[in-house]
């Protein structure tokens, strides 16, 4: 009980600190949101009118307190840039990013799990070297190049997948999958490389443990040992990595979203900073902090499911 209370309290402190820092930084950052939105051709009257909606002239402390007040009621305010409620804008972008993360996750498992296990089973240099080199390529090619490469092969040459725009799942699931396949594939090349690396190391070190030897000596065949015992236990460190990867993808990738013209969280972060959209960036920072916490909590939960010895104290 005390454990949860402390965790939650800690989380609230983090949220508080993050929001204060963001607020302060935005006081230092040069730039007037109204001017950024309207640009160099703006009429002074228009700028004034827009500024009035932003309440930027009120004292900082007052604005922060009123923001906290409404945030506690679940109201994150109105975005300067879009003149719409922040929560709605984030929710829209989240629906894209969440699907992207889900597809990336699925692809990562589909690519990473079999290869990682296979490599652990065949722990020989002649297999490992080519595989790890190829999988390392996934993390080391700049995402812009990877994106453009995939687009020029699969969109321009083969015309298998579209490369721009996003179709919501509810509108057309197939079109949705097709639209998100290339971006999630290019993201999953990186994440599955990480997964493969950790899975292999984890399985190999697990196999050296006593209970595996015992199981083997009992005459269980290799695959059973692997599936029943080793895999289960070696998943624990892998899940930690997974939690981090998911949190990463949910944080949005500006470059991938730009290259594939997806309206996701990454692009939203970039826009909100570029336009000095304080309410929106505050909302986003809160969102990102929550993502990290939720992912960590899910990882803890998964631990206890896989290995009942680990209790959620």
């Amino acid at each position, binding site marked *: 009980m005390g454990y949860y209370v402390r965790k939650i309290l800690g989380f609230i402190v983090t949220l508080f600190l993050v929001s204060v820092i963001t607020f302060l930084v935005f006081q230092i*950052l*040069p*730039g*007037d*949101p109204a*001017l*950024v*939105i*309207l*640009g*160099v*051709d703006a*009429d*002074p*009257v*228009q700028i*004034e*009118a*827009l500024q009035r909606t932003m309440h930027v002239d009120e004292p900082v402390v007052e604005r922060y307190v009123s923001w906290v007040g409404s945030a506690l009621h679940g109201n994150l305010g109105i975005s300067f*840039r*879009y*003149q719409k409620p922040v929560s709605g804008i984030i929710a*829209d*972008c989240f629906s894209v990013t969440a699907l992207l993360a889900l597809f990336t996750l699925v692809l990562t498992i*589909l690519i990473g*799990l*079999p290869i990682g*296990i*296979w490599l652990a089973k065949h722990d020989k240099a002649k297999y490992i070297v080519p595989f790890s080199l190829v999988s390392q390529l996934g993390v080391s090619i700049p995402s*812009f190049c990877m994106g*453009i490469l995939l*687009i020029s092969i699969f*969109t*321009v040459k*083969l*015309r*298998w*997948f*579209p*490369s*721009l*725009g996003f179709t919501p799942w509810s509108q057309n699931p*197939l*079109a949705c*999958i*097709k639209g998100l*396949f290339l971006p999630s594939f290019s993201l999953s090349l990186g994440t599955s490389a990480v997964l493969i690396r950790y899975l292999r190391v984890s399985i190999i070190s697990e196999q050296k443990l006593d209970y595996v030897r015992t199981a083997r000596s009992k005459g269980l065949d290799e*695959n059973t040992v692997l599936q029943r015992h080793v895999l289960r236990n070696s998943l624990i460190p892998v899940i930690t990595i997974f939690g981090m990867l998911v949190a990463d993808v949910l944080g949005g990738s500006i470059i991938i979203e*730009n*290259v*594939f*013209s*997806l*309206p996701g969280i990454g*692009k*939203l972060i970039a*826009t909100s900073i*570029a*336009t*000095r959209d304080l309410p929106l960036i505050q909302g986003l920072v809160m969102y990102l902090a929550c993502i990290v916490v939720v992912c960590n909590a899910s990882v803890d939960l998964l631990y206890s499911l896989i290995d009942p010895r680990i209790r959620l104290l």
Partner: protein
Amino acid sequence: MKKLSIVVCLFALAISSITATGVKEVKPNEAMVPSVVRTNIGSEPDSLDPWKSAATDTEAIFHNVFEGLMLYDTNGKMIPGLAESVVIAPDGLTYTFKLRKNVLFHNGKPFDSADVVYTYNNLTGMSGEKAVSSKFSLIKNINAPDAYTFVITLVEPSAGFLSLTSIPIVPEGYTNQAEHPVGTGPYRFVEYTPGQRIVLERNEAYYDANRMPKIKRAEIYIMTDEAAIVSGLQSGQLDFASITAEDAKQLSSDYTIYNAPQNMVQIFALNNEDPIFSDVRVRQAVNYALNKQDVIDGVFGGYATKLDSNFSPVMGMYYNDTLSGYYEQNLAKAKQLLLEAGYPNGFKMTITVPSNYQAHIDTAQIFAQQLAAIGIKATIQPIEWATWLDQVYTKAQYQSTIIGLTGKLDPDSVLGRYTTTYPMNFFKFSNARYDALITKAKVETNDAARISMYKECQKILTENAAAVYVCDPNLTVAARKDLKGYVFYPVGFMDLSTLYFEE
């Protein structure tokens, strides 16, 4: 391991099934004439509400949705729009607009003088609310004698006033423009998904048969990545798009390339109040040190018009063509001027450039090298756009910068930037004769006299080297071969109504 191989097989199957159905959908159907035209826009609209929007990009799209009393043609000449005709009284103060009948707003509401009165009441602040724009302060009063007549009386004559009447007319009492814009244009607004796209559809009830769109639907994708735009074109996901001149050269065999000056002046601005650049000789020296052709060839692929005036030739009769070639690169002269100004060994300076414009950054790199030849050491400082607007544009805390300013129909709104009293005169140019000329030209109703005044203004700017006027980069548009009818306007307007697919 069997399970794993099954998983892998399923995965492969899943991919192939997705792709198998994909082939047909993505490929444009060649047998039929498409009913949708797809293009891109480089930035998100600032606001859908015309009263709250100022960005050129937004205007370029939404000029398809909204119309003013007057419209402009491809030469920038004012032509009747929602007004069938306009009569200007001999004193130049009273404008009588005869309004078009049988015009419907996109929401079905019939258009009449009440809407015009509503619009102009808000624009001028006569409604009791704050004025929506400062440009209409010269209106003394407005009235509508009947449902299809609208009369404006000005405080003083203004030759540039008519070009202001291209401002959108909105339906009386409709306040949801920011969410769902309603105008009278050839296309009506359907949807806008932030970060993604704007969709417009043909206004079937459009009054002018000549401007009735041929294409039923237009999808405008918000795309910023140059490479993504090009691959969008190549994969047939975009029907036309504005691209760089360099890319256009590569695509020219498979696409129709439209290429024309866009009436944007790329300016290398020198802060006239800077201790170094306050000396006109230093500014002139900088002008003589630079070779603009290198920028045109290096940054804009050769597709740009070299300038020595703050106007692009697109401004037509207002453009002062005698200035062309005023500053040709002449290092000896540049050095001489520097010597006279007391900088025999040059000096150090900073070029502040907005980091989101690679073209301006590249220009800065070329200029930095050329300036080195006369001993000026230039450092390039890229800053974020928001910071640029704040530090450079608003506060004029900079030494030099490179920026493109778009042209307007009314020369006053371009040249007015250099007047001493203009709040955003970031050039910090101040010249009494210039200010007087601008004020005089505003009320001059004789066209010839007015034109010569504006030409004189350009001459003052160039002679005083208010800035370095570099070039007007072309707007390059690549369109698939069967898409025809793209036209250029002297201001940013992407006219969708003229486009059609060849059968």
